[in-house]
């Protein structure tokens, strides 16, 4: 498995910590998911006086890697400030960088993203940028110092799955050595399987689990799906073809010419 800034993860499951009915259900979902990374967003207001401490302690107690994010930031300045706060609170150089460009689709502002990634990388952060499947932007992010890319599957919280399989496959093919994470838009475990079959290294999701009627069961379903996709990918899948290829021998059957 490709490593993330020198850290090898037990699996490619990154799970968000927002929107659960309660912290107890959140903890149970993590237990059943076996996720190796927890993402956590920092509201600037609670960062200032460390008011979210009780909640953050609960997240720390999950015993997994913590990936703080800059969710909801709309400008480079906001994202950079939030990243600094997160580094102080969680004592990690990791930061999932979100610079939102459009309110309805929560599409990343890729120009601001590249700029913020450069600023943060120069400051010693290890940046996980939330981006699109655009190859040129991906290239610029790598130039800016990112060693991981996190393209969206579809808009955040939409549950639409992988909207542009062709683009995601091209991204994988263009950057065979860069760890790639599908971030956002997954709604069903089968979509996570597809992501892993495409050769992606990890998936990151939140809403699909947190807003399921039974979050813990859905977390486990995603874990199984992830495992299936990963195993399938490593098993060297067959090539699709246009015509049927009989799976049973035809010798001995009568041919009519």
């Amino acid at each position, binding site marked *: 498995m490709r490593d993330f800034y020198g850290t090898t993860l037990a699996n490619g499951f990154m799970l968000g910590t927002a929107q659960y009915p309660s912290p107890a259900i959140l903890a149970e979902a993590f237990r059943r998911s076996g996720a190796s990374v927890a993402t956590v967003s920092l509201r600037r207001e609670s960062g200032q006086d460390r008011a*979210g401490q009780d909640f953050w302690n609960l997240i720390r107690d999950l015993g997994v890697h913590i990936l703080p994010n800059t969710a909801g930031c709309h400008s480079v300045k906001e994202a950079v400030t939030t990243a600094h706060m997160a580094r102080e609170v969680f004592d990690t150089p990791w930061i999932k960088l979100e610079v939102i460009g459009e309110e309805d689709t929560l599409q990343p502002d890729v120009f601001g993203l590249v700029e913020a990634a450069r600023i943060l990388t120069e400051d010693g952060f290890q940046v996980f940028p939330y981006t699109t499947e655009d190859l040129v932007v991906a290239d610029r992010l790598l130039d800016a110092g990112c060693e991981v890319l996190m393209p969206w599957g579809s808009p955040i919280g939409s549950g639409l799955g992988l909207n542009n399989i062709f683009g995601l496959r091209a991204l994988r093919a263009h950057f065979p050595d860069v760890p790639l994470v599908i971030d956002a838009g997954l709604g069903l475990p089968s979509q996570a399987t597809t992501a892993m079959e495409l050769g992606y290294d990890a998936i990151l999701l939140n809403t699909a689990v947190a807003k399921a009627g039974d979050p813990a069961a859905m977390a486990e379903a995603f874990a199984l799906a992830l495992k299936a996709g990963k195993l399938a990918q490593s098993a060297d899948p067959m090539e699709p073809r246009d015509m049927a290829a009989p799976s049973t021998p035809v010798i001995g059957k009568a041919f009519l010419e």
Partner: protein
Amino acid sequence: MTAVTVIGAGVAGLCVARTLLDRGAEVTLVDRHATPGSHACSWWAGGMLAPNCEGESAEEPVVRLGAEAADWWAAQTDCVQRRGSLVVSPGRDRADLARFARLTTGHRPLTGPQITEMEPDLGTRFTRGLHFENEAHLAPRAALDALRDSLIADGATFRQQEADPDALATQGLTVDCRGFAARDALPDLRGVKGEMLILSCPDVTLSRPIRVLHPRVPIYIVPRGDGMFMLGATMVEGRAGRHVTARAMLELLSTAYALNPAFGEAEVVEIGVDSRPAFPDNLPRIRRDGNLIRANGLYRHGFLLAPALARMVADLILHDKTPEVSDEIAA
């Protein structure tokens, strides 16, 4: 006669005191403040008695225990209105309405014209909704005042003083209902900040609480009569002091404006903020340690669950019956 001291005159303490008094105990209520007010979390409550709606995110006991609330409050005060509650979503967020319907019970679907008929001031803005017919709401501040006054009238003693639960417990049975102030004794209690506001808008008439679903900021509006409306409430993990963010106000006010543009002209009467005391599963707890009983963690369900909590505290004290929501503190 069993003598009990109850500490904290917020919604939990008042309900516990009332229930114990009704069941024949001799009750002393102790609070730092003379009257219910802004120091108590319950002062800022929405006052919805909506157990079915809460089932969307809360666990089963909230729905079941909350079903006792409307009758209890109606028997104790004249602050309860039984007109059900209404859940709507903007057209583009219809998936959220479907999800809400799936996760809750006790509702019937409404068409656009039915919504307009029930709440004419919503106009034709919503084409689908849910009506929870058996739910109710109350005026929280009036209910707290009424409960305190009736307690005193019926023979409970009220003492205004700073109380030390451990010291009081050496003298007799004590119930600690201080909410977040009891954090020192309850390390797994956390604060979940909520911001609300009160608008005066005589141009708009609504007759029941309305929840507006939205993927990021679900918000409710509760009519308080005389053109007053309560809008709430944000949910922010962490006891973030008493400052109100611009974002919270923006979210609350845009929802009101979306319900009826006349809210744009409303007067902002009050802005409130406090922390809800909550345990990790967001369910309340009753913990007994000898003479000291701690009842806490009502989270966003103060008025909804306090009657059931009080019943269980009374059963524990008077009949030694282990409460459903109890867990033992390690000695």
